[in-house]
């Protein structure tokens, strides 16, 4: 430890340069991770906010809400297995709307739910919708930016139905489009205007797109056995099947993984070159009785100090950046994600130092004898 710290003190420029590179990489890792998490949440917030463990969807719907059609009968069957309290119907429909008195169209996702059930989002402004009322909807806050306020009348382009905004909810979206919540009655009406051809689906009275359930493994097996024409999809699978989700996350994750590999290699190359440069010095140290383990620990400590130090600084920078990011920018970095990312970053750095450690163990103390220069 004595050697590691004094060497860094002596060769300040050299170690500062590598620290800056590590700092930039660490910053980018955290930033892209935050962006990936933010986009993931922004994309599928409404589904992720749901308290469900599984969704029952039509077979062959490829886990997609919008493709699936489920009948009332499935809902009844499911509630007989997992209990009425653990089952909620869900309608999902992506559509385009216009606001009365406004120019321009809005892409939204209509979510049909039971306002008394556990899919009901938390109200942040205005009045909640009820199971009995008609023509009232809750909309995501983001629609405020498009000039939507309490009492604004929304017109669905496909069906021509009109709804009045009665309240706002926060962080509710599906496939990046803001969510609009309707009660079951309004949802049924919407279904009537866009009649599904009976032959196109397995159920004649299909009313919902999916059923949200809270189920354990035992329940899940039972459901699979009883509902032959349906599929029990986990929440994670349902989320990643949302249009665009996988593609978006895939490319961001590729960036993150590459950044990890790059940081590991940058450190590996830096320390390998330094170690080779210092090999006669290591030889001297070994000759005067320094154990190899001490030298290895010394190299590892330097790597650890560099990666942990740059990580801490980049965390502070990330926090500063987060506070000045525009509110529309989806950025989400929870402390758990941050901790995991940091552990991975430090681990990858240590992996990068292995090459140098191996080199240090190979250096022979005998090199010290008969040498002219250090």
């Amino acid at each position: 430890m004595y050697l590691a710290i004094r060497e860094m003190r002596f060769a300040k420029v050299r170690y500062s340069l590598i620290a800056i590179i590590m700092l930039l990489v660490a910053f980018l890792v955290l930033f892209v991770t935050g962006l990936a998490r933010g986009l993931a949440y922004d994309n599928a917030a409404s589904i992720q906010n749901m308290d469900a463990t599984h969704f029952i969807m039509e077979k062959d719907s490829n886990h997609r809400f919008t493709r699936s059609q489920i009948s009332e009968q499935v809902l009844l069957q499911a509630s007989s297995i997992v209990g009425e309290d653990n089952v909620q119907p869900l309608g999902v429909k992506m559509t385009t709307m216009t606001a009365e008195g406004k120019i321009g169209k809005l892409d939204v996702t209509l979510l049909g739910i039971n306002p008394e059930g556990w899919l009901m989002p938390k109200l942040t402004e205005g009045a909640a919708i009820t199971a009995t009322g008609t023509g009232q909807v809750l909309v995501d806050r983001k629609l405020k930016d498009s000039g939507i306020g309490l009492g604004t009348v929304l017109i669905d382009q496909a069906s021509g139905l009109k709804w009045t905004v009665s309240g706002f909810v926060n962080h509710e979206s599906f496939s990046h489009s803001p969510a609009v919540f309707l009660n079951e009655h309004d949802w049924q009406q919407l279904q009537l205007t866009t009649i599904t051809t009976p032959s196109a689906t397995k159920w004649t009275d299909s009313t919902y797109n999916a059923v949200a359930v809270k189920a354990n493994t035992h329940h899940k097996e039972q459901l699979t056995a009883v509902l032959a024409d349906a599929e029990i999809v986990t929440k994670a699978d349902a989320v990643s099947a949302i249009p665009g989700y996988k593609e978006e996350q895939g490319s961001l994750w590729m960036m993150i993984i590459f950044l990890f590999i790059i940081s590991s290699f940058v450190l590996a190359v830096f320390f390998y070159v330094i170690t080779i440069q210092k090999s006669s010095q290591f030889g001297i140290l070994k000759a005067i009785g320094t154990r190899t383990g001490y030298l290895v620990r010394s190299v590892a400590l330097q790597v650890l100090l560099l990666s942990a130090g740059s990580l801490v600084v980049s965390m502070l920078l990330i926090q500063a950046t987060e506070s000045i990011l525009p509110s529309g920018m989806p950025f989400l970095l929870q402390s758990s994600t941050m901790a995991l990312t940091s552990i991975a970053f430090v681990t990858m750095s240590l992996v990068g130092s292995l090459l140098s450690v191996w080199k240090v163990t190979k250096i022979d103390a005998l090199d010290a004898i008969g040498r002219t220069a250090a």
Partner: protein
Amino acid sequence: MRHRLILNNITHTFEDGGIQRTVLNNLNLQVSEGELVAVMGPSGSGKSTFLSIAGALLDPKGGEVLLDGESVSDKNKQELSDIRLHKIGFIFQSANLIPYLKVEEQLTLVAKLGNMNKRKAAERIRELLDMLGLNHRRSAYPDKLSGGERQRVAIARALMNDPAVLLADEPTASLDASRGMDVVRMLAEEARELGKSAVMVTHDERVLPLCDRVLYLENGGLIERK
């Protein structure tokens, strides 16, 4: 008189292009307490091999090395490291100090490696630096020192753990005549005063009068010439 360094029937061979080359052949040497022995010989005569074996850096093919009466054969790497740390003080060509440690830190490092108690270490460093006239240079980095000063730091570093044996590998190679004389005189004095057995491999005939004995490495053995 006690012999702190004894080499008994040391034989060492190298494989060189398929031919076995005997570098050291039944070499015997006993160095007594307080004695400085100079070992001379042409390039390729095996001086480095001799020094490496005496310094527990290389295991000879035959014979044994005794440091303070203790054999260094059949030790593992860590035990050898510890023997070098505690029993042997090395002084290399051109000093070979650690470039990023200040003069006193060069010595602190050795103390730390040997788990020496901090107060004792600080006291010993002060003593050694005083003795070698380096006190005013204690917080200088090696690149700010003159060649002679560097070699004196190397001597101090070698003495830090109070070893039995001092081994010097051409310590005057990078110094001018008078500096070289100073360094060897110092080496001879410390060996005598502190009761070390010192061996110096050298090319430099000017410093021979300062040594107690001069030996020549020839045909794998050491011969005394008058």
